[in-house]
Structures are given as C-alpha cells and as structure tokens.
C-alpha cells in the first residue's frame, strides 16, 4: 500500500441472505489510474461498487479514501468527499431537461464549496455551468440536445449524462458501471477519447466493463472477480493469459479469440 493509493479496499465481504456476493475482496487504486474490474455476470462487480459508494452496507471490511475510512458512510457523504459513481441502469431525472439534470449535483455541498466546474471564482449561473459540462462530455452546445427532456434522449446521451452528473461534483474518483454497454460501435469509439481525457484531467477511474477490447485500451490494471472472489489482478495482457481467468470468464478456449 503505497502513498500514491487514492482508494484502498480491504477484505470487503457482503452476503445477501445465503448468497455470498463478495468474499474478502481487496485491491487498491493509484491516483490518476484507470482500473478495470471484469468478471462474468453475477460475479459481484456492481455489488462491489455499491459497497464502496455506500449504497449497500457491507458486512465486513474497510474502504480507505486518501487514507481515511469511508466505509458505511451515507452515499451522499461519500459523493461529497469526491468518490462518485455512474449507474449501470441509467438514472437520469426523466421529467427534467438534460441541463437541469445537472443543476441538482451542482447544488451539492461539494460543488458549492469547490466553486463549480474547473475551479475558482463564483459558481455563477448553475444552468450555464451545466451546459458547459454537457459540452465537455459531448453534447453539442448549439443544438437542441442539452435542452431536451432526459426521457427523449437516446442511450448514448444518457450514458454521457451519467458521467456528467459525476463531473458536476468535480470528483477525484469516478466508479463507472458499464458505461460502454448498450452503445453502438461508433458511440463507443467516441466514448474512449472521453475516458482518456478524464484521466488526463487527473481523475481516477474504476471501470466495470464487459467490452474488454475498449477497456484494455484505457485501463492500466485489471482485476478479475468470479463468484464474489478476486481471481487475479495485473496488467491486461498478463490477466488474459491467466488459465483461471480464461476458464472462469471466457470458457476454456483461447481468450484472444474473444477480445
């Protein structure tokens, strides 16, 4: 555990009744890194994100953020510390236009304290700031898109809106729950540079992904979960050579056929 570690997860366990969703999962993420979490369906990836961000109370284990314990804090407290998340099933405010969706996170104590998007000065007009963030994330500023109701936006924009909600909090860490899933190849192709840009801005990203090819383009390290337990961790190439990973995640055939 070096000083560079921004997030440390230590022996986290969670059971739903008789189902052991997570068992003694430990890992740590360095500042500015893109860290991937992969594993078959039902292996506990989303549960892990829920535990870290406080949406589910873990049974045992600890989560340290910048060396301080955040385990079992309320989700809004954790978000205010700078650890934000996206939801796999998008959760926009469907009855509000896209830009008004962002006014809500901009009202949070953290956004008020840090003075809005890109530092310094007054928060100013929240709606202007939210349009700025939407442009940053790929909404065309001079089109109708930012002003459309969230319920009429296609999946690609809703996935971006999830990320935009995190960005409005000026986060240090974003936990992305399958931001590529449900997108077309061209939409993914435009998301990848976005992820790279966020990393350049110094944001640490933890990404759950099934789209391995795209994940491996951006992730520096990958952890594999299977049945709630950590199988292995390492750089993508090493992980995919691992015999246990092939069997658990991809079946027993050659992994490289699938990515």
């Amino acid at each position: 555990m070096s000083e560079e570690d921004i997030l440390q997860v230590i022996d986290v366990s969670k059971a739903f009744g008789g189902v052991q969703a997570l068992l003694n999962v430990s890992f740590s993420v360095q500042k500015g890194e893109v860290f991937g979490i992969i594993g078959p369906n039902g292996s506990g990836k989303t549960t892990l994100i829920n535990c870290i961000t406080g949406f589910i109370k873990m049974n045992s284990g600890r989560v340290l953020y910048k060396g301080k314990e955040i385990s079992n804090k309320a989700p809004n407290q954790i978000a205010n510390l700078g650890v934000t998340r996206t939801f796999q099933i998008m959760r926009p405010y469907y009855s509000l236009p896209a830009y008004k969706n962002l006014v809500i996170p901009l009202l949070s104590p953290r956004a008020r304290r840090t003075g809005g998007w890109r530092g310094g000065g007054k928060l100013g007009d929240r709606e202007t700031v939210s349009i700025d963030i939407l442009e940053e994330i790929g909404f065309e500023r001079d089109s109708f898109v930012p002003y459309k109701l969230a319920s009429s936006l296609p999946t690609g924009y809703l996935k971006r809106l999830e990320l935009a909600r995190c960005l409005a909090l000026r986060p240090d860490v974003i936990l992305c729950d399958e931001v590529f899933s449900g997108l077309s190849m061209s939409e993914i192709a435009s998301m990848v540079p976005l992820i790279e840009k966020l990393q350049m801005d110094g944001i640490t990203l933890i990404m759950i992904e099934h789209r391995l090819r795209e994940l491996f383009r951006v992730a520096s390290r990958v952890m594999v979960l299977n049945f709630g337990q950590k199988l292995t961790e390492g750089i993508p190439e090493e992980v995919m050579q691992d015999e246990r990973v092939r069997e658990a995640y991809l079946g027993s055939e050659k992994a490289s056929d699938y990515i």
Partner: protein
Amino acid sequence: MAANLTERPERRKERIDRGIKVRTEGIYAVSSLQEVSYLILPRLVLIAGLLILPLLMPNLYWNSVISTVGIYALLALGFDFLAHYVGLVSLGGAFFIGVGGYTAAILNKSLGLPPALTIPMATLGGAIICTLLLLPALPLRGVYFAIVTLMYPLALKEIIVALNVLGGTDGILGVASFPNRWVEQYLILFIVIFALFGLRRLVNEDIGLVFRGVKDNDQAVRASGLSITLYKAIAVFIASGLGSLAGAYLSHKHMWSGISQFALDFSVIPIAATVIGGGGTLVGPVLGCLFLVPISEFLRAFGPLRIVFYSVILMAFIMFRSEGVMVYAQRKYHQFQRWVKV
C-alpha cells in the same frame, strides 16, 4: 397486414403548441398586449374569481362554506406538492389539521394570544411537530409512507380520549374568533392564493428541482451528494405547515378545537380534489376543492344518500377524465388541434 392497410384512417389529429406558448415558455413576454394577456389573463381570472366569491354568496351559511373550501384547498395543495413534486403520498391531512388546530387553541386559551399571533405560531410549531414525528417514516415510499401518515391522527385521537388530556372528548372550548366574517373569509382566500403562487414558484426554483429529482430518482440524488432525507423533511415541513395553518384557522373559525379535527375527511377529500382538478398542476386541486366542497353541501339534503352521489361523481371523473380538469384545460389552452391527411 393487408387488412390493416385498407383500414388505415385517412386523417389523424395533430396537436400543435400555439405560437405564443412556444415563445413565452420561461421568458417574459412584453412584446405585445396579446402575449402579455395570454400569460396573465388565466391567473387574473383565478385571483379575481376567488376574491369576488364572498360577495356573491347569498347567506351566512354559504359564506362559511368558502372558509371550508379554503381549508381543504390548503390541504390539497400540500398533498399535490408532496405527491407530484416530491413523490411522497401523504394521507396526513387530518394529522396536520389536528396538530395545527390544537396548537392554536392551546396558545390562545392558556397564553391569551390573539389569532394574529397564534396562527403564525401554530403554523410554524405544527410544521415542526409534524415533521419531527414523520422523520422516522421519511425513508419509506409510496403506500408505506401513506400508512404512517394515516396512523398518527388515529393514534393521537385515541390518546386524547383515553388520557382525557387537552379537553378529552369535549375539546378546547372558547377559542377566540375572528373580528368579522370578512376578515375570516378574505384571510383564508389570500392565504390560498399566496400558497398557490408560492408553491408554483418554489417547484421551479433550484430547491424545487431537487424535490422533483427525489421523485424521479432518489438514488441519483444521493449519488449527486445531496441527502434525500433532508430534502424530504423540508418538503414535509412545507406541506405540514400549510396543513397546520389550515388547522389553526379552523380552530379560530369554529372557536373550538376537538378530536373531530383528526377526522379522516381532512385526509381523503384533498386527494379526491386532486384527482378531479388534475394532479401536478397545483391550481387543479384548488379548483377541485371549489367544486367538491359545495357539491357535498348541496348533497346534504339527501342525508345518508349523500355519500352515494359523491362516490358516483368521483368514479365518473376517474373513469372519463382521469387526467383531471386542469391538465385537460391547460392542454386546450396551450395547444390547438387540427386534422391532417396521413
């Protein structure tokens, strides 16, 4: 498929926003008298209509009905606000009325304060008491929250009777009344108008966006770094404040506060008014009360059959105009329809 093609209608209805509506959404239109009146006229008609009501009433009895309409209108506003802007279904009308009513009566009787002081104090105090008592129920949603809000008035009523406190079954008698009937009626009408336009403004402010966010997607609000319990508590405070205000007014109007202020009418009629008036419009529930309360007075002549007629009217509305009068009226006002060739 072939059969479908031959039966396809040759024309369909098309709904288009009126030009003025398109231009005036969210900005102030001062360009022409027509556009200004398009915005202001409906509001002006409503305000003038409400203020003229007391002058039109034939006798004292009907004047007192106006006050009753006002009381139910405040409860209906609170219900509509909680249900359609915060996502909390509240059956707490009786609870708010009872707490506000008893608070005002106690302040008036034991401290000798005049209505000008007891009503604001009971509004604030009642809102604080109701919010604190409902605090444990705030994580609940939908019907579960409704059950808790329904339980409190029932429980408080039984406690007052069983322990014989606060006047027991007799209630608190001899509460000060208003100076005259004009003060009595215009007070409640002004309060209703103020509450209506205040809430309309509130739901479009920043805090109103958070309320609507809580209704749409409370988990996303938590992920945005905001405490949903805090915002739900603020919303309940506002709604219970309106209810307590109505209760305090009721105590001074009847010069009496008693267990009948915990009657379930106060919980149920506001919901019926919201259904008739149109949920989510805020003005709809007020109009709903303006329709339902006098109807219920007219039907008094039928004795026990009253409730049958009442139910038939409600059912007819739910089956044939479930969106409510105001949703329908607003659509007609803002859009026009025309037939177009397919």
